[in-house]
């Protein structure tokens, strides 16, 4: 096996993480639609930090 397996794993983890964030955000808006804007900000931030893991895997490890 060759290639950047760590990037693939990071992308898989980030995908799961983004999905969980979206799940939580959607559930939260469903419970309290009035708080949609603050929830959106929190969700966007969390998704950005989760996604960044893929870029760490891409650039911080030699491949």
């Amino acid at each position, binding site marked *: 096996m*060759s*290639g*950047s397996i760590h*990037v*693939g794993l990071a992308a898989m983890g980030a995908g799961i993480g983004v999905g969980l964030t979206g799940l939580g955000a959607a559930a939260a808006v469903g419970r309290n639609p009035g708080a949609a*804007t603050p929830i*959106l*900000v929190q969700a*966007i*931030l969390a998704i*950005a*930090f989760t*996604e*960044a893991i893929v*870029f*760490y895997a*891409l*650039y911080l490890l030699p*491949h």
Partner: protein
Amino acid sequence: MQHCFFSRLSLLIFALCGGCIFATSTFAAEVEPAVPLKPDELVHIGKFAITNSMLVTWIVAAGIIVFAQLATRKIQVIPSGAQNFWEWLVESLYNFLESIIGRELVRKTFWFFATIFIFILFVNWFGLIPGVGTIGWGHHDPATGVFHVDRPLLRGGNADLNMTTAMAAIFFVLWIIWAIQANGVGGFLLHIFGPKGETSGFLKLIMVVIFFMVGWLEVISILFRPISLSFRLFGNVYAGESILEAMSNMVPMLSWLIPIPFYFMELLVGFVQALVFMLLTAVFTLLIAQHPPSHEPQH
């Protein structure tokens, strides 16, 4: 394959200013993806190359400027037609941003976020117009007799990593300026390295050390923001173009039918990515431009 793909992507970043161009040969076309990673050169002016992505960027920018000027040439109290459209667009953007980053900050930074949203949105959607990527110079495939476009005249503007990196870099500079304007250099550093939360005594000392270390993590995460911003936009638009290309070539008889659902998905993706770019930059600005919590009244 994956390895080669990403090492070339990182190469592209370093070749940003040089406009370094690799030669595409017909042999490489079998190994390379259907849509090349880099835009193709159209004209050379000295060392400066004009690429098909740049052409699209300029067409869209000129279109937006002309349309906005025409729409607001005769401002009426009761807007109608094009003026109404622009007022609706700008006003809804303003109210939306105000609800997220607050009244003071939106007054100062609205110009940037609105421009970036409108520009990215129209560049993304312009790339979906039939003819982009399919009109250009090419050759007849001797085996099948099908005409194959090698050098399209137009290519989606954000399907070029140079463009998205430029926007992310401009935001990064502005972000530093806005942060220092809001809190000063000391406040900016304190915001990153300073201790958060309420502690006292010996625990406070430990917290200062811990948060100083956390600050370095914060610095790394901040430095990665322009990279993730540019790659997110580029990756989504480029992947979208590749999907459309692949779907068009899958079944030659049905090449007019199969891409249609994907065109609708790309309309959605183009909007969502413009929104995400604007929201992320706005939230990053909000986070750093917030005044230190110690000045706020305690609850």
